[in-house]
């Protein structure tokens, strides 16, 4: 699977190529355009967007929602077809987790959990697509149509920390919002300052509680990113180093990854539910 690139690239170049993003952003001279080398991408700093991961993220999320809506509109209570049963089983799975884990009334949590679970599941599943198929085709198109030299094209959005942290920070914003809404600003700050050791230990309490609070979104986003990034990297190493022996190795790692892909989506969803449930707990 790495043959196409391996002839003209060293293994290191191959892996760097696969770990780079197709970046569109503002060049240091002020004009906007694609970065043609990793160095150019690095120079863009914050004012850049990863066209590949962002695009796959939007495409997969949009496909999931439109497909679910399509099935939902044709859903019948009396005579469900196979596809409807499949979608319903996902829906019920998520709904049961929400019912178990979220003990308050909030109609947003169910849809949020469903979106998180299915979207992340789809994004993670992209990791099981052989590493050079889409990336290789995109690199060819980039080279011949747009004049790129080794155009990077990453297809697994969850190996981009922007994607995972974008979601976990959104959930963090919801945690803060619902905490203040249900506990009041005083209640929320009080929870940080007066727990676990009462008002005489405020600095110590803050030292414990603030990292605890901040650790939630960071661990949530980085756990997902780390698992998928490591998985992707191992696929790349196998493809870059093992030659023909990569086939059984890819298979073995893909089988293991079949567990990681849904597990990480599930963990992200469960923690979202649990964190938001805690944010709704008025009496701590």
């Amino acid at each position, binding site marked *: 699977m790495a043959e196409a690139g391996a002839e003209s690239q060293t293994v290191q170049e191959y892996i760097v190529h696969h770990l780079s993003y197709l970046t569109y952003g503002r060049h240091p001279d002020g004009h906007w355009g694609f970065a043609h080398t990793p160095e150019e991408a690095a120079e863009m700093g914050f004012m850049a967007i990863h066209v590949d991961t*962002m695009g796959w993220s939007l495409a997969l999320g949009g496909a999931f*929602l439109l497909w679910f809506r399509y099935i939902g509109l044709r859903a019948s209570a009396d005579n469900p077809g196979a596809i409807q049963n499949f979608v319903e089983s996902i829906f019920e799975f998520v709904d049961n987790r929400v019912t178990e884990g979220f003990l308050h009334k909030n109609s*947003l949590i169910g*849809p*949020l959990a469903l979106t998180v679970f299915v979207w992340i599941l789809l994004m993670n599943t992209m990791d099981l697509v052989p590493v050079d198929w889409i990336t290789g085709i995109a690199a060819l198109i980039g080279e011949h149509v747009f004049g790129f030299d080794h155009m990077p094209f990453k297809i697994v959005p969850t190996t981009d920390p922007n994607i995972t942290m974008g979601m976990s920070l959104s959930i963090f914003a919801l945690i803060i919002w619902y905490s203040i809404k249900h506990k009041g600003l005083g209640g929320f700050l009080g929870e940080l300052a007066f727990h676990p050791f009462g008002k005489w230990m405020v600095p110590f309490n803050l030292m414990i509680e603030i990292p605890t609070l901040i650790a939630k979104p960071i661990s949530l986003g980085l756990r997902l990113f780390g698992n998928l990034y490591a998985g992707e990297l191992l696929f790349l190493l196998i493809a870059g180093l093992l030659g023909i022996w990569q086939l059984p190795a890819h298979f073995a790692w893909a089988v293991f990854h079949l567990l990681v892909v849904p597990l990480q989506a599930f963990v992200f969803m469960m923690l979202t539910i649990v964190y938001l449930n805690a944010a709704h707990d008025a009496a701590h």
Partner: protein
Amino acid sequence: MDINLTIIGQSVAFAIFCWFCHRYVWPLFANVLEERKRTIAEGLEAAAQAELKLESASRQSTEQLEEAKTSAAGIIDQANRRAAQIIDEAKQQAQVEAERVMAAAQAEIEQEANRAKEELRTQVSSIAIAGAEKILGRAVDQAANEEMLTQLAAEL
């Protein structure tokens, strides 16, 4: 890690997707499942009702059967009694009739006997005279012996 505008793009996309899911996807399935739950509950309810109805119907039919049996037994009993009564009556009537017939027969016999006696009585004097005439070889004056003959006839 190169954090850039993508993180904002993803956050915005996440918000929009959640809103879309909340507004256009989640209710569809929630409604379908709710509707199915209701249908099943109604079906089970109807089945329970039907079972109750069946039970009451079978109880009613058993009761009616029991009632019919009782009434049939009553009717048979009554018929038996009536038959016995009729036979008794017939026997009684027959006995009465027999007695009546016997009495009539006895009366007739007595009457006949009396008549025969009477006839004998009226003929005894002439027999006696005829007998005496044979014995004496001459006519006997009936008038002269009238008193004796009457006495003889009365003794018979």
